[in-house]
């Protein structure tokens, strides 16, 4: 399994699209710094942190999509998955490999963006609390990419195509699915049943986890990981176990 992760992670790092988008995010952070220099506002550090926050907010699209495509779509296009299974790697192991790989790539990009953001923030005189809040925001958005990716993965392996799954991933990342669920929740019949569909969304669970006034906040982190990372992985393993693979 380790060989599989290592081979695939090194492959993704050679993918130009992935490297280009990483460079774009870094350039955007630097651009935010330049903008801050010219328009510093009352607190230069805070202004930079706010601008960086906007970039982190679209990180799901900028970095999430290339990672999602590199990890899942390429697997189907190149039939590397068939080669791995034909070589004796079990299907559950293969899926776990892909999840680990996705998490690893997102953590790796997160580390790079954190370093660039902290260095830039320090140079602009941001306080420690502002820096911590900014980095916390970055990792919160990175975690969301991981969870949206894991949920969308079910569709990848169910349909053996990354296209539909990518659409779901994008819709989740930009919050469309949350809006749809809010719409469902607004239907009078649903309201009469006292059901709020939005409580099951990643956004909702994570915001509760972030809410310091909520007593069960620490537990919500565990719930988020179990419900949106572990459970989708298990579901994917089950749906993929007997799937016919084409050459």
């Amino acid at each position, binding site marked *: 399994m380790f*060989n599989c992760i290592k081979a695939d992670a090194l*492959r993704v790092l050679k993918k130009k699209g992935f490297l280009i988008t990483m460079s774009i995010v870094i350039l955007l952070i630097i651009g935010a710094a330049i903008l801050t220099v010219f328009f510093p506002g009352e607190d230069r550090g805070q202004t930079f942190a706010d601008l960086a926050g906007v970039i982190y907010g679209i990180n799901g699209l900028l970095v999430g999509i290339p990672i999602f495509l590199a990890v899942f779509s390429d697997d189907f296009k190149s*039939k590397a998955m068939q*080669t791995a299974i*034909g*070589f*004796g790697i*079990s299907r559950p192991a293969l899926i776990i490999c892909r999840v680990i790989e996705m998490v690893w790539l997102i953590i790796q990009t997160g580390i790079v963006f954190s370093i660039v953001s902290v260095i830039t923030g320090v140079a602009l005189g941001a306080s420690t609390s502002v820096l911590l809040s900014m980095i916390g925001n970055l990792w919160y958005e990175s975690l969301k990419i991981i969870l949206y990716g894991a949920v969308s993965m079910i569709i990848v392996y169910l349909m053996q195509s990354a296209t539909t799954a990518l659409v779901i991933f994008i819709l989740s990342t930009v919050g469309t699915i949350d809006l749809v669920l809010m719409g469902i929740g607004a239907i009078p019949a649903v309201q009469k049943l006292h059901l709020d569909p939005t409580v099951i969304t990643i956004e909702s669970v994570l915001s509760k986890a972030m809410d310091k006034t909520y007593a069960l906040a620490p537990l919500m982190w565990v719930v988020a990981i179990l419900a949106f990372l572990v459970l989708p992985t298990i579901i994917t393993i089950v749906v993929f176990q007997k799937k*016919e693979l084409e*050459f």
Partner: protein
Amino acid sequence: MSEAVITLHDIKKSYGKTEVLKNVNMEVKKGDIYGLIGKNGAGKTTLFKVILGLSDFQGGTVSLFGAKNEKENRMNRRRIGFFVGANFFSYLSGRENLDYYRRMKGIADKKEVDRVLEIVGLSQKAAKVQAGRYSLGMRQRLGLANAIMGNPELLILDEPTNGLDPQGIADIRNLITEINKDGTTILISSHILAELEHTAHCFGIVNEGVIMREMSLEDMAQMTGLTGLEVANEDVEKARKILEANGVRVRNVKKTSSSLEDFYFRIIGGDNNV
């Protein structure tokens, strides 16, 4: 009696109501080149997918290298190299693709990539080109290089000469024979009978999901009851008289010319010897 490398027993496989494999029984023995013959859609690729664990089946058993269950089969698949369509990461070079699979297979020696590239005749220059820019022939060679990486004990090749030019076909044929000489068992499919006749030791004829017959080259000769001797001479009548004078009964005399393949290689100066 040599040990069985692949044993399929009563394999049944269907897609909905369509049965694609009907009680397939097949045995490939160690050291053999087993040719699986059948027209397109006969079930050859499905059989390969069953052997490689890429397709579920409804009945029967698969045993690889004497494995007793699927877990053992999975472990034994690491002893198999296979070529079932040449698909690669288009943005990586041929070498990078092979390097990817080398890492995945846990082969530590980086020189293994150079070794297999040389065997399949892909130059170092060609290996640096992105696989997406490869011609079909180059992709086939790259696929074969991947299959033979790590010296597998069993090689499964699904129509490896599809789309190749005559030189490529002859090269692959020679390659298969050479690999087999080192003791590698080979299961190869084709719908081109002449191709397998030149390479395989035994055959399985598959039609509409059924193995109609399994036989060795010797069995084939016994079944027809005849063995032939080809005499190439400009004066056929003279050759016939010499044979009859020496007590050889000549049942059939047929005038033939060189095969198109022989003629082609004579013109371009290539080599089609197996």
